[in-house]
């Protein structure tokens, strides 16, 4: 196929539309701190006994699968620390809950830490966080 410059320019017109460029976001840390304070009352948080599973790099920032498990938890709060509204939700487990486990999909505004805090049945708190990167993509190997 022979391509003239004119053809090439015509073909290429309006070629690439980059979707909204995801950038690392730094949401109001005040909102995050306030949400944590409200949930924990300022108590110390341990790191054992809670597992947060999230992809390292989101395949689609609009629907990022996460899972959190904290055996013995009474409630688990999930925060997307970089979202304009960081609170994702709080899951309460009744005394008959067979497992203190939840999975859902959340929307992330950009690269950020997702955080889960569990209030255990004895009133103590544990937390875990995971960096989820939201990237333009392309150029892989």
């Amino acid at each position: 196929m022979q391509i003239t410059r004119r053809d090439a320019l015509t073909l290429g017109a309006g070629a690439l539309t980059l979707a909204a460029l995801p950038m690392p976001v730094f949401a109001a840390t005040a909102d995050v701190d306030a949400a944590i304070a409200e949930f924990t009352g300022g108590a110390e948080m341990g790191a054992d006994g809670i597992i947060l599973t999230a992809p390292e790099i989101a395949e689609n920032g609009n629907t990022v699968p996460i899972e959190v498990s904290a055996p013995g938890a009474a409630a688990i709060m999930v925060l997307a620390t970089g979202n304009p509204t960081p609170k994702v939700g709080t899951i309460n487990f009744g005394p008959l809950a067979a497992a203190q486990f939840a999975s859902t999909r959340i929307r992330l505004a950009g690269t950020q830490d997702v955080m889960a805090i569990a209030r255990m049945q004895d009133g103590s708190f544990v937390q875990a966080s995971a960096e989820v990167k939201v990237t333009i993509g392309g150029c892989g190997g």
Partner: protein
Amino acid sequence: MISRRDFLQVAMATTAIYGASSFGNWSRLSAQQSITQDDLLSFDTTGNVSLIHITDIHAQLVPVWFREPQINLGVGDAAGQPPHLTGADFLQRYGIEPNSSAQYALSYPDFAALAGEYGRMGGVDRIATVVNAIRADRPDALLLDGGDTWQGSLTALRTDGQDMVNVFNALRPDAMTAHWEFTLGIERVMDIVENHLEFPLLGANIFDVEWDEPAFEPFKMFERGGVQVAVIGQAFPYMPIANPGYMFPDLSFGVREARMAEVVQQARDAGAEAVVVLSHNGFDVDRKMAANVPGIDVILTGHTHDALPEPLLVGKTHLIASGSHGKFVSRLDLDVRDGEVKSVAHKLIPIFADVIAPDPQMSALVEEQRAPFADDLAEVLGKTDSLLYRRGNFNGTWDDLICQALLEEREADIALSPGFRWGASVLPGQDITREDLMNATAMSYPEAYRTEMTGEMLHTILEDVADNLFHPDPYYQQGGDMVRVGGMGYRIDIGKPQGSRITEMTVLTTGEAIDPARSYAVAGWASVNPEVEGPPIWDVVEAYIKREGTVSVAPNTSVVVDGA
């Protein structure tokens, strides 16, 4: 007259055995002996299980030139560690003699000169000879293909990978995993897997998006040498991010470390006495996974195209790196007893095309695949004064040429070419054939776009891609090289965090700084977005080469690297 075969020097003939004194002695024998096929194949068969690993052949059916990278930087725990050693550091680390065949095969210095001396490497008919020889020693050896098999050549593109499927069916692997395979589109992949492929495609980390359930078999158990050997597949983790997700919209990938741990446990519970991961993670991802997931004996690494003359041991896990483009085949003999791997013997076998005799049946089959396209493959488009190669973190002459073609043919200010790691080399003074051009460009989303971007957007793109390469945590790395840039220079500090690595972006023609607010005409190719318009990149580059007649690529000094 001395034939090339007589002239070649022994270099890669030593078997590396863990714990034995010959370990580290690899390729010291540059002296004055001729290389023979027997030297390349000699191996003291040991243990009870043999593995044969080939990966990232990128559809190269016949022997090629392939220059290894000059710049291949590691970050975080991988800084200064294999496979991030190049040139003199690499040669010294592995005791490789200057100007030896091992230097030629594994490193970049004096590549063009040594290429003339040692000849092309690879070719599936030579690989068949090696595989057959290993099978003669150990008939039930496991042959495992790490993927990136169905893409990378004119014939693979024109046949939707059927040429490679036909040839690999004849080579009879026991399993494969995948990356670029999925860029044929999910319908074609499933057509191949269900109707053509005579061995399983394994992927423990491939899930259905909607139900989050495994979409491919995670592992297969093989009884070999009286023991159970589990082979777990791990496909490229960042498939929908690094390549167009719309081509396989219902699949989700990811590193999924917890899933790997679970599958290893399943395999052990099912009686596996040796666990092998056939991986397309990339070397640094595998290094981290080996450290974090217990119970893996061997990871056959892939994706990042590294070739290492010795296994790298992480805890009890042996990491094997078998190169790319058919240049190498790794052989491992395992002694598996009492439920564990007692010892490992390893050899990285270089496929010197002038030394290893082609297997006649495989030669005929390869020829059958290429015959319908023979005229196209052989067509001369022009000539090159420069060595054309791709590999390297920041630039390569092939992409410099592609960027120059994009700038001129598309009348752009700035050109972008993706940091792919595949693409064979062309020696200075050689003709550039259509086959050569397609070896550097053949893929299923080749549209050469032309668009406007602000300086700020260009900065964001460079920062984003740089973080995919230089994030200190390998699980955030995608395993490509840096996007190549034409018409613009920049400075990069690889040790900085995302957003502050890239500075001093400069328009090369004027020396002016890139203005974040100004709009620039940008030409590029291989966008992962849907509905990109433009001619295929090979038509753009062909037009440029034909117009130039003979191309020359000046040394590229437009990227300044700090923090290495």
